[in-house]
């Protein structure tokens, strides 16, 4: 979808629930994917994704095309929700120790399959674990840049920061990530 189509759809979505549904269909996968790459846990990713779209619905009337596209706006909400989650759970159990959904009562086959599928991405999970130990500001730029393949300009738009700031955050973030590997 190009920017003009997105603009038109957002305009319609402010009046028509079906148009909002189309917007949702368009961005659900991207948003869910980003959250999953940040938290590496399907249950948490589902919760944060739900929260993100509910917030988007609540605040849709406020959304105006002022230097930020709708997709970046959605990513910004998702990013804030992930950050909130990390802040709230800062002193709680580390992510890797959160019980697997397998232990939940009667999980659906779909979730089980998704869990199994996630385990197949071992390289990703290892690096993600190291990234999750960095400060949130470094986690978000590295994930957006390398896992979401976003351009520096887009990351700046999502995070509401200058491109120069993003570049230096990326540089420092990678340095710190490399140090994390060294201190294995």
């Amino acid at each position, binding site marked *: 979808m190009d920017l003009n189509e997105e603009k038109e759809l957002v305009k319609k979505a*402010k009046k028509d*629930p079906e148009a*909002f*549904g189309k917007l*949702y*269909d368009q961005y*659900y*996968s991207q948003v*869910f*994917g980003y959250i*999953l*790459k940040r938290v590496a846990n*399907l249950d948490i990713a*589902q919760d944060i*994704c*739900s929260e993100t*779209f*509910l917030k988007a*619905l*609540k605040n*849709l*009337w406020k959304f105006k095309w002022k230097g930020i596209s709708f997709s970046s706006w959605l990513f910004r909400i998702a990013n804030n929700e992930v950050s909130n989650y990390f802040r709230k759970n800062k002193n709680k159990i580390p992510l890797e120790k959160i019980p697997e959904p397998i232990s939940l009562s009667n999980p*659906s086959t*779909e*979730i089980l399959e*998704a869990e199994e*599928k*996630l385990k*197949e*991405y*071992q*390289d*990703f999970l*290892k*690096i993600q674990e190291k990234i999750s130990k960095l400060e949130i500001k470094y986690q978000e730029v*590295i994930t957006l840049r*390398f*896992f979401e393949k976003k351009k520096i300009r887009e990351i700046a738009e999502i995070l509401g920061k200058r491109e120069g700031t993003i570049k230096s955050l990326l540089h420092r973030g*990678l*340095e710190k*990530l*490399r140090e994390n*590997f*060294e201190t*294995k």
Partner: protein
Amino acid sequence: MEDLTKKTCSELVELLEKIKTPEIEILSHKEKLRQILISQYQKEKKTWLFFSVFQKLAFASLSLILIFFVFNNLIYPNYSLAKAREIALKDPQIKEMIEKGGMIKDLQIIKNQAFVLIQTAKEEIVTAPQIAEKKALGIEEERAEKKEERPVALAEINLKEEKVAKIEKIVPPIIQFTEKEKEKIQEISQREIPKEAEIKEVIPPSSELKLIKKEGKIQVLPEKKEEATIIYQVDKGRWQGKINLKEEKVEEVKFLGEIENNATNGK
């Protein structure tokens, strides 16, 4: 996975760029969330409407308040002041005062009324030091007579009817010194003028009137200057000095003349 402990930054970047990320979707969650969002849509739409109307109203109210504030505090007072001045200058009595060298000293607006303070011609005003000089030289009787010649006029203007409602003549009062001020004057004089000098008189400054808005009314109040004039005598010579009470020093010392034996000492 290869050993990451000895990787350089560029190798790390290469690795991150190549890494395969999970592309997982939980369709049941997607569908359930979609239903929830659509069912909440109408409820949220009402909230959007409320907030957007509220936001517009708040913006409109703020703009109105701002316009009212600017008009009331910047535009209207200046316009009214100009209008009041114009009405005042059209009045024959005020016109005459101005033609004789008088001037508008102050102007204040309260509701639909304007108050204009007119100072009569300068030559008619006798300042305290002038009186003092004459007094020192033994011609003090002129003081009372001249005092009457220092009035200011207060014109009340009805802005709605665009006319001068009344003109009142006011004589500026002479502000007397407080005990503390008297002590201070004494102290400064002793320090600053010759020891053998005898202080003949301490004269309060001439007060200038000003219009002051107080509790919705206009008051004509004198502006107190922090100064005093002293007349002192050393042998037969009479001197006048102006005391600056703020800086606590004697300024502008002036020789008034030699006093004759039969002249009044002016106490």
